[in-house]
């Protein structure tokens, strides 16, 4: 009976919880102020001599790469190539819309490399001094109309989208959604608001056409793969060009391995994988 029998005094428990939270917050901010490592902060060249090398000259370390959803396939291949060239390295990928990833990084998500599908998402991070040096454009992409296999709705161009039923676009803050809105506005095509379903990233947008009941959608040229969907091309004159920048984050715990990865993406093997996936060269 009475307070003697309680295992933990309630006031002490609350104080301990508050102390832990304060400690956690302090730890979070302190890593951001550690001095920049010896690796150069400007644009990364093809060989980075300052990355920690194992006995065979391969890079070691463990990094997290946050990449736009449209980079899922090429970056997974690039990751395998990077690991093949550097057997002791560990690369973890997070794929989602560039805006979501940027928001997570701004909120403190631990990441080493950020690859976005538009300059605006990268700008939200460079504006907060979260990118080391200047981001480099590593690929470009274009949009296409995607329809179900066999084109049952007989869509021939952007103008048909205004009356084709439910159209799947990315959210207006997602890069492919921004580009799609630009392309539609430039072509003067007004799809009724209650026919547009907005996906949270380009893969979800594609799934609405591939697996769901959306009649058509607008995604990147590189996303139209498999036998459930086919592409209806948008003429170059009406199309938008998406530029993909990549950068190393200042809060990266392993700056040199991150820079080695970026160098790999910009190098010949990375370029080949991206072009095989349908991306345009950074040109």
């Amino acid at each position, binding site marked *: 009976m009475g307070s003697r029998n309680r295992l933990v005094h309630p006031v002490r428990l*609350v104080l301990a*919880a*508050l102390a832990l*939270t304060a400690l956690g917050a302090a730890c979070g901010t302190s890593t951001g102020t550690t001095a920049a490592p010896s690796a150069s902060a400007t644009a990364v060249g093809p060989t980075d001599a300052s990355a920690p090398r194992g006995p065979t000259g391969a890079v070691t370390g463990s990094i997290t790469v946050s990449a736009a959803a449209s980079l899922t396939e090429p970056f997974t291949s690039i990751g395998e190539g990077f690991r093949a060239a550097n057997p002791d390295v560990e690369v973890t990928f997070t794929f989602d819309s560039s*805006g*979501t990833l940027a*928001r997570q990084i701004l909120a403190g998500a631990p990441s080493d490399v950020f690859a976005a599908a538009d300059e605006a998402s990268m700008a939200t991070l460079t504006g907060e001094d979260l990118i080391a040096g200047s981001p480099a454009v590593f690929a470009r992409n274009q949009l296409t109309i995607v329809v179900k296999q066999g084109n049952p709705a007989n869509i021939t161009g952007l103008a048909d989208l205004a009356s084709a039923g*439910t159209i*799947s676009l990315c*959210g*207006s*803050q997602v890069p492919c959604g921004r580009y799609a809105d630009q392309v539609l506005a430039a072509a003067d095509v007004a799809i009724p*608001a*209650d*026919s*547009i*379903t*907005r*996906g*949270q990233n380009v893969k*979800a947008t594609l799934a*609405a056409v591939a*697996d*769901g*009941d*959306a009649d058509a959608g607008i995604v990147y040229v590189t996303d139209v793969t498999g036998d459930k969907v086919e592409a209806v091309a948008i003429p170059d004159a009406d199309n938008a060009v998406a530029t993909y920048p990549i950068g190393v984050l200042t809060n990266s715990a392993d700056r040199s391995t991150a820079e080695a990865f970026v160098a790999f993406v910009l190098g010949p093997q990375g370029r080949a994988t991206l072009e095989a996936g349908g991306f345009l060269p950074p040109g």
Partner: protein
Amino acid sequence: MAFFALPLVGLVRLASWSTLLTDLGSPEALDALRLSLICSLGATVLSVALGLPLAWTLARVSFPGKGFVRALVLLPLVLPPVVGGVALLAAFSRRGLIGGPLFDATSDGGLLAWLPGGPMQFTFSTTGVILAETFVALPFFVITVEAALRSMDQRYEDVAATLGAGRWLTFRRVTVPLVLPSLVAGAVLAWARALGEFGATITFAGNIAGRTQTLPLGVYLLLESRPEVAVALSLVLLAVSLTVIVALRDRWLERA
């Protein structure tokens, strides 16, 4: 307790209180609020209408395969909501098990083409939202009411029978009044679950502003473009949840 309190306190601190009412008055916010209200109430009504006979059957009737039926009814409780959305697509989309034939039948030239309203499609419609929300909310109602029906004193029903009351009269005048508090609690739980549904809604009904973009979907999409509106809408959901918990505290937390 700090684990639960801190996120809520953080949310309240994040809110832009001076612009709260204008944020809530913006077109996207009003659309989302209106849709959420209509769809969650619709889903609750449907959950009660379908759930009451289901709960009564599970509590009073014994039949072969009853355990399996109960497991099926309660499945959405443990199924991840997105998986529920995919399952709903498999059943009710234009190429689905039931949705496919229904769509073809109500299209031009089909057996049911004479029905008003054109081809019947559940996806990308407000009806689809109600369907998805009912799918996830129904088990909450059934589980609450079935438990109440099992634990009530069935002798009252027996007495009514001996006095000559038919099954329907007994149900109406004896059973329902006795389990009414649990009926209400089950309906409120189902309503709260329907209000918060995200995964099944966005997968099955899509995300169409003004037609299927409910509060949770609106918050998710507004987080990047207009975070202050997203936080304002989150506060509305938070206030609703708190009200539900306070209203149900006697039933769930203090009842033996």
